[in-house]
């Protein structure tokens, strides 16, 4: 099954997106038989990856195409059901890799909601008109404000532990205690009562922000949406996002600025990114005129799509080799011109999008090598990719034709999930080295880059081919599980944030539990869900 991430509101199956001035409404209306596969039914507004792809698309489009929106109401078109969470039969019949990819993507989508709230000032309100369980409540928790209908039976719940022997895998546990400030013992109770908590107690425990009786529900939601919208700022005319879907030519995905060549036998893919061809837009008006075709936006949307396709559709391609091509000065001019326009809503959105795509790369469970060779263009925005990579290889040449360089894009506009820049993360605990690097303003040749600690390995033209080839082949031969765990552990030194915790716990705990017999063994709870016989647990603690 090949999954496409390219969609449009005209083609949504599961969401209805509507606009009323400053308030947009995103209504969940999951089609029973609209799943990506046909071996499960999406009952009770439960979701699969396809549903979430539409959600992610909607959030992105609201940010770019509808800057007038200051509040998004997330509700349900189904009577008395908000959302029952991730579809269990889908999870039960999915491979481990698919489950992990599914959870990663849905987590990124929830974080994008929070990113839109923080970066774009678009506040999200979850209007829970009925049952809100598991992933449904996790979606609500990603919003700024939660209103629950108070009808004597509708509850919020995280029933994963008691019912399915897995975890709320979309940041639910972390957001309960870190974001919403639910007391940890109450959170413990909440996460183990499958029926959930409703009414006044849900407010008292901070699980929701407000409750409203059915007759007042729509009014309360509208009032709160209005209040939330009043916090937003006025922007300007929107920018339409056309499809960036690649043309597929055998093993090659061709975008305008990105090309992906897949070598299945070597279990590797080479991503080649191209710098802009033209001078940067002179001012905000020029940037707006270019719209979605402006280089940074187009290039990073393409990279985003490429990352997702490789993640989901090419599971055995474990090593991504990143190359860049183009004019270093022009790339830096683009980076600096964009950041000079900071404060313009569209420029800010483009910068925020670039940061999101880079963060998606950070949490990708693939080995990433950057190849900095003749003709490469690892400057600014592209240099962030080299910094995101697990290793970088740089060719030594006598004429200093090979060089990397910083731009304003490396100086704080694209923080990682741990809250630090990639440079600060790289030199974590070594302020002096970081300061020295930040003082650099021009091209940095191979020897200097090596001395400054910006690359992993410098090799001259005699060693280059063998060093790089052997490193690639060696990497591709190692256990993908051990590599995933190692990379995820090494990529994020320094402090924790909500985001870094969510991904860390997802990879460490949920993905572990997803492998354990108590969940997925022949008698595990996920395996037995919906089956005539019940789960049986091995009660050994480990």
């Amino acid at each position: 099954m090949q999954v496409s991430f390219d969609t449009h509101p005209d083609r949504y199956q599961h969401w209805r997106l509507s606009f009323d001035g400053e308030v947009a409404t995103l209504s969940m209306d999951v089609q029973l038989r609209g799943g990506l596969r046909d071996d499960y039914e999406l009952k009770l507004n439960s979701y699969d990856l396809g549903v979430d792809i539409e959600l992610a698309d909607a959030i992105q489009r609201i940010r770019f195409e509808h800057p007038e929106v200051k509040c998004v109401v997330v509700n349900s078109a189904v009577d008395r059901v908000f959302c029952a969470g991730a579809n269990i039969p889908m999870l039960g019949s999915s491979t481990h890799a698919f489950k992990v990819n599914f959870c990663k993507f849905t987590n990124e989508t929830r974080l994008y909601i929070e990113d839109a709230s923080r970066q774009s000032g678009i506040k999200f309100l979850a209007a829970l008109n009925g049952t809100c369980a598991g992933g449904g409540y996790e979606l609500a928790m990603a919003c700024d404000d939660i209103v629950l209908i108070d009808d004597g039976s509708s509850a919020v719940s995280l029933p994963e532990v008691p019912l399915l022997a897995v975890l709320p895998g979309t940041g639910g546990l972390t957001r309960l205690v870190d974001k919403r400030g639910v007391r940890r013992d109450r959170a413990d109770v909440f996460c183990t009562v499958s029926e959930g908590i409703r009414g006044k107690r849900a407010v008292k425990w901070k699980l929701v922000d407000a409750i409203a009786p059915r007759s007042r529900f729509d009014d309360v939601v509208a009032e709160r949406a209005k209040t939330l919208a009043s916090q937003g700022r006025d922007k300007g005319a929107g920018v339409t996002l056309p499809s960036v879907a690649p043309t597929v030519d055998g093993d090659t995905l061709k975008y305008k600025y990105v090309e992906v060549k897949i070598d299945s036998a070597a279990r590797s893919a080479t991503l080649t990114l191209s710098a802009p061809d033209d001078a940067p837009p002179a001012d905000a008006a020029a940037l707006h005129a270019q719209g979605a075709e402006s280089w940074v936006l187009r290039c990073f949307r393409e990279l985003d799509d490429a990352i997702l396709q490789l993640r989901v559709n090419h599971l055995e391609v474990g090593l991504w080799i990143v190359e860049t091509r183009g004019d270093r000065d022009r790339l830096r001019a683009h980076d600096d011109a964009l950041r000079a326009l900071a404060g313009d809503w569209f420029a800010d959105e483009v910068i925020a999008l670039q940061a999101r795509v880079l963060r998606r790369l950070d949490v990708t469970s693939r080995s990433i090598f950057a190849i900095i060779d003749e003709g490469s263009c690892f400057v600014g925005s592209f240099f962030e990719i080299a910094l995101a990579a697990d290793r970088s290889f740089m060719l030594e040449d006598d004429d200093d034709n090979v060089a990397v360089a910083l731009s304003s894009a490396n100086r704080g506009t694209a923080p990682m999930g741990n809250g630090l820049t990639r440079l600060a993360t790289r030199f974590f605990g070594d302020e002096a080295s970081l300061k020295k690097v930040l003082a650099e303003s021009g091209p940095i040749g191979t020897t200097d880059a090596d001395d400054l600690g910006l690359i992993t390995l410098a090799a001259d033209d005699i060693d280059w081919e063998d060093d790089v080839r052997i490193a690639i082949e060696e990497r591709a031969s190692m256990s993908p599980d051990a590599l995933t765990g190692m990379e995820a552990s090494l990529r994020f030194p320094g402090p924790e944030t909500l985001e870094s915790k969510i991904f860390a716990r997802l990879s460490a705990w949920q993905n572990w539990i997803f492998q354990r017999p108590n969940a997925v063994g022949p008698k595990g709870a996920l395996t037995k869900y919906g089956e005539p016989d019940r789960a049986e647990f091995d009660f050994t603690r480990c």
Partner: protein
Amino acid sequence: MSLTDSIPNNVDLSSDRKLLRALEKWQPNFISWWRDMGPVGFQEDQIWLRTAVSVESSGWAHYDYVKMPDYRWGIFLTPNDGNAKIGFGDEKGRDSWDEVPGEMRASLRRIIVTQADTEPASVEQQRLLGRTAPSLYDLRNLFQVNVEEGRHLWAMVHLLHQYFGRDGREEAESLLERRSGDVDKPRILSTFNETTDEWLSFFMFTMFTDRDGKYQLSALSESGFDPLARCTQFMLTEEAFHLSVGEQGVGRVVRQAAKRTAQDSNGDARAHGAIDLQTIQKYINFWFSSAVELFGGEISTNAADYFAMGLKGRHHEQKKYDEHRGLNQIYTMPILDGGRLSSKEVPLRNAMNEVLRDEYVADCERACRRWNKVIAEEGVDFELKIPSRRFNRSMGMYAESAFDLNGDVITREEFEAKRDSWLPTAEDRAYVRSLMTPSYGPGEFASWIAPPRKGIKGKAIDFEYCKAGSPESPLWSEAAE
């Protein structure tokens, strides 16, 4: 009178601190709920009612005049010898549970709360019916059903109080806070939020909707949770009366319809103030299709879990079946596949809702055969029919398509074109409502319903089953005449 004296019981209430504490708070709330939401207008009247005062055969059907708010709602469990075994599922053969097993708390709570919520709901739905009773006999039967639904609420609340701690007490309170049809605090199941504002619907409700209750209780009476089994066993003895009110009530309306049809030269029962058989058929179609929804999904994870856990068995699990694990067996059911019906084999445990629905459908068809006998006796050529369980569904897998009365797939457009000939129209309902004028004189019956064959517990049909208790009573003027 102290709390323990006023509540007939066989659960040793007087020495049970936990239960006493819970009931001290809940009982006054129940009484005020009854006054607010129980029958409108007859609370001070003397109604000749049956009260269960003990579980012995001499005690569970004690008849006397009583004012409804003074009715002695009691708590009874069918006695057992203390050696009950779990009769089915994974734990079959082990000792029954006397306490709620922790791992089954959530499931049991859900089962009990859902069942319990229907009891006060139906009292609320029927609260206005007394004003249009077709006879004192029927008025009394209505109130008998109402007070016993109240007692069934007590029975379920007892389980919540006794076995579910603080959470159980809160759920018991919520049962008195939800209101049928209330937009803000609706009852849990949607059928129980529709009003029953005329007597044909009341008879249909007791015939079809209460009959679902019978099968649910029957399945729970097999439960491995012993207090639930014993509690529902005793409820079933009372439920039988409710079902007979429905079945015989519909039967009497059918008899009157057939009689008037035969009498009229054009076969027009409405010309004589009766309800025509075609309209009765439409009501059957509506109420049956609404009641079959209550059995839950055709293929159900919950049903499989409840059976596996030993919480909810089949109807007559012990009497009727030899094999009680239900594993490695299949149930074949028609499913929708690309717009057509085809057979699908489903693991038996997952089809337990359907197994129970089969029993129910057969029972409804049996009642229908009796009604048809009545029609034949009156010399009218007409047959009533129970529609297919797939007809007019809004839940479950058959809700995805439209079906005709025989259960054959049709388009939504075809269904809409036939709607008015299959289901009661606004005009039909208005006609039925127009007939609803009270007949409060002893032995008097409204034009649209035949008298019963005999009275209650040896009393004559014209016995004064309800007597005015005050000048404010709707019964007062009749009494004065």
